């Protein structure tokens, strides 16, 4: 992918865009690039030749870029459990917590790309995750997949590639400049840690909204 001559010493780390300073970034020797590692609930956008990496269980990552501009990003989200609507009630449940949250996660990424000059009509989307990683959990992954497919259809985005579902976690590396994805399906050995991390994320999603989500002006 790149020459072995490149290193963290010869390739300065480009500053993160405003709002993304807290995402952990490290030098990836095999990618010969700086890598941003995103956790559940986070997303990262870059205009530089970097790699964005994450580990997915039942969560979904959408990798989205504007090929003409060489800018792109990745999110990592799952839908919160929603008691207010039944299964497959996406349209009827358009006001549901799950749909609101999932759409927010997708829109946050798309908006940041557009702020960097991406054209909505050019956006190329790749989808990963949605695995069924624990037999004891309800199939959260399938619900996440169903959501993201419906959302993208409604928004008119084209899906260039996807690797979704199945009984495994995934390690994803995304190179927004080229659109290349390096994907590794992981062994069950790593499932417990990933499931624990996703369960903690899911609990956070159910916490009450912060009071500052509404501001009234006099």
């Amino acid at each position, binding site marked *: 992918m790149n020459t072995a001559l490149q290193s963290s010493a010869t390739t300065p780390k480009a500053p993160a865009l405003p709002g993304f300073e807290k995402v952990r970034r490290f030098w990836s020797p095999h990618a010969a690039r700086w890598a941003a590692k995103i956790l559940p609930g986070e997303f990262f956008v870059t205009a530089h030749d970097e790699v964005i990496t994450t580990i997915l269980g039942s969560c979904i990552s959408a990798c989205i870029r504007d090929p003409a501009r060489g800018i792109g990003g990745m999110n990592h989200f799952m839908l919160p459990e929603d008691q207010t609507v039944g299964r497959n009630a996406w349209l009827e449940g*358009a*006001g549901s917590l799950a749909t609101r949250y999932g759409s*927010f996660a997708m829109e*946050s990424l798309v908006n940041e790309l557009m702020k960097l000059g991406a054209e*909505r009509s050019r956006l190329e989307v790749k989808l990963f995750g949605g695995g069924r990683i624990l037999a004891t959990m309800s199939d959260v992954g399938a619900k996440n997949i169903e959501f993201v497919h419906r959302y993208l259809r409604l*928004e008119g985005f084209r899906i260039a590639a996807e690797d979704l579902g199945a009984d495994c976690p995934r390690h994803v590396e995304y190179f927004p400049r080229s659109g290349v994805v390096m994907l590794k399906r992981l062994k069950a050995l790593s499932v417990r840690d990933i499931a624990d991390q996703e369960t903690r994320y899911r609990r956070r999603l159910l916490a009450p*909204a912060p009071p500052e*989500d*509404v501001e009234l*002006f006099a």
Partner: protein
Amino acid sequence: MKILIIDDSTAMRMIVRKTLRLAGFEGHEFVEAEDGAKGLAAITAAAPDLVLSDWNMPNMTGIELLEKLNQTGVKVPFGFVTTEVTPDMRQRAAAAGAHFVVAKPFTPESFRDALGAFIR
């Protein structure tokens, strides 16, 4: 009442409409526009009683639309429903005469808090 929803996301316009109903605001007429420029045209053509607008949109952003309305002297209750809310954005929204800013992912309760004074 006639409520204009301006958002470049089809999904989000649908979600805003549905959340208004969940918040108890029933029986209203909805008009939609997919960016600020089309929103401006819809305000002229449809004369809505309330405008709910996204902030980041192609062609004309939500705040540019509100500032344009101010320049042309069009008065309509106007609030933002937006993904990103920074202190600068709040300040600019208030200065332009916005009545409220609701951050996504909003809840029916946040809609009730923000819109209760405007929707009959």
